[in-house]
């Protein structure tokens, strides 16, 4: 490690560095640098940090801030990687946002595994726990375990869990920035966002903007998996080309058919190496960089079948609170499964599944059974259900699931037609 104060070039978060002490910034300055930098939330939604800071700061009541490392998405490992590499930046960022909003309490909400008394150092949150004990931060940090559930990282679920309840989303009529943990104005921020803020405080908004585009500045952490030679977590500037991103992960390990961007709530895009990974460039595909999950699908796998597997997993991960989600997601998954022509084993894409090194672990190999035709109305029915559940839940779980399925129908529309004729373009037997 070098005790250098020069700003990092290239990689920013995933570097071995010892940073100088945080400069003394007042609350207004912290909000101003977040605004000038154009820093957005790295948990998936991409909301500007400064606006949330301003909303909580202007409440005039003692606030609560929470660093969110829950990362319930099975194909995402960037928060765990960052936690291991740079817990110092995360804790710095947490102190900065605490100061910006006048918080008296700060929480670190992270993976539950191993985060029990005595074994904290061996858990995923261990580095942060151990470091927090050695630091003399103005706002003390309390650690809270996050359950390993897909929706446990959603911000209102985070606030609920930190308050001591179950980690399930709540109704959004009252925002948690107005009334969250113990009715206090509450700020929940992804740990990567906090780490970026810690660097912006040291090196300034102009340095931050020297990567990425004017509209989408800075770098982001990507978890690249599926059919690539060297899957892993990498840091890229926004608007990086898909080709460069995949090459950094060792390149495709087989000819690719499509790439899932934005995770299980994301969208399928063509494997065009020139495509840019930015909100602007991905919008036409109904996708966005989200939390940086990128999964490469080989040509020999069936996109409909893989999407049906993910849909079944997502249906099972419903918190079970909202009628349209409880009923609509399983129906949507079952309908796509029928169209894909194979029963989807529930949770086959759970942790370790689709992210296994060297290939597309979800692929079940060429089937030998005889093909059968799917009913012609199935694709239209998936689409109807997707539109029916959208916007009708306490959180965006139904919306994200619907987005994935709609993007699959578009990206694999040749295969939809083939399946309706009893064939599959990937070579897998339909039934």
């Amino acid at each position: 490690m070098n005790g250098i104060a020069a700003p990092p070039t290239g990689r920013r978060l995933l570097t071995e560095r010892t940073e100088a002490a945080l400069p003394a910034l007042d609350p207004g300055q912290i909000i101003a640098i977040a605004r000038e930098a154009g820093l957005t939330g790295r948990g998936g939604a991409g909301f500007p940090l400064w606006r949330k800071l301003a909303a909580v700061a202007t409440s005039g009541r003692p606030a609560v801030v929470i660093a969110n490392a829950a990362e319930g998405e099975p194909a995402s490992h960037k928060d765990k990687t960052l936690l291991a590499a740079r817990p110092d930046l995360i804790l710095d960022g947490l102190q900065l946002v605490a100061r910006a909003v006048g918080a008296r309490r700060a929480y670190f909400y992270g993976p539950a595994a191993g985060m029990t008394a005595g074994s904290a150092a061996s858990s995923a949150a261990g580095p942060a726990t151990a470091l927090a004990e050695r630091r003399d931060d103005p706002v003390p940090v309390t650690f809270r375990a996050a359950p390993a559930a897909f929706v446990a990282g959603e911000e209102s679920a985070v606030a609920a869990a930190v308050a001591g309840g179950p980690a399930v989303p709540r109704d959004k009529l009252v925002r948690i920035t107005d009334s969250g943990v113990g009715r206090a104005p509450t700020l929940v921020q992804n740990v990567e966002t906090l780490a970026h803020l810690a660097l912006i405080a040291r090196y300034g908004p102009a340095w931050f903007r020297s990567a990425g585009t004017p509209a989408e500045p800075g770098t982001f952490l990507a978890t690249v998996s599926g059919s690539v030679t060297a899957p892993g977590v990498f840091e890229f500037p926004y608007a990086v080309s898909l080709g460069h991103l995949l090459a950094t992960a060792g390149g495709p390990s087989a000819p690719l058919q499509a790439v899932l961007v934005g995770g299980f709530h994301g969208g399928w895009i063509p494997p065009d190496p020139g495509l840019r990974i930015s909100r602007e460039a991905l919008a036409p595909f109904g996708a966005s960089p989200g939390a940086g999950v990128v999964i490469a699908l080989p040509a020999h796998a069936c996109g409909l079948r893989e999407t049906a597997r993910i849909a079944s997993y997502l249906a099972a991960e419903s918190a079970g609170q909202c009628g349209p989600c409880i009923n609509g997601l399983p129906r949507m998954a079952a309908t796509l499964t029928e169209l894909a022509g194979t029963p989807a084993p529930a949770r086959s894409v759970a942790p370790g599944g689709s992210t296994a090194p060297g290939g597309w672990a979800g692929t079940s190999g060429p089937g030998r059974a005889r093909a059968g035709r799917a009913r012609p109305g199935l694709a239209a029915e998936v689409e109807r259900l997707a539109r029916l559940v959208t916007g009708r839940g306490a959180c965006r779980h139904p919306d994200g699931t619907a987005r994935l399925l709609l993007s699959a129908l578009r990206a694999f529309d040749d295969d939809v037609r083939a399946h309706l004729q009893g064939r599959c373009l990937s070579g897998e037997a339909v039934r």
Partner: protein
Amino acid sequence: MRLHVDWTACDGRGLCAELLPEVIGEDEWGYPVVRGDGVPEKLAPAARQAVDRCPALALRLVPATK
């Protein structure tokens, strides 16, 4: 004004759809489907009644911007 459904509270009793069929339909599981973005002024009394009668206290009439 517009209608807000607290989906964590709604259990699909269907009273709102009976009281305000012009704005609220039902999906195949009996959960409300709110049509359009706002409640027309002339339907405001019926909307308020639907809100008051909801046995799960899941329906709210809120300013259109919220």
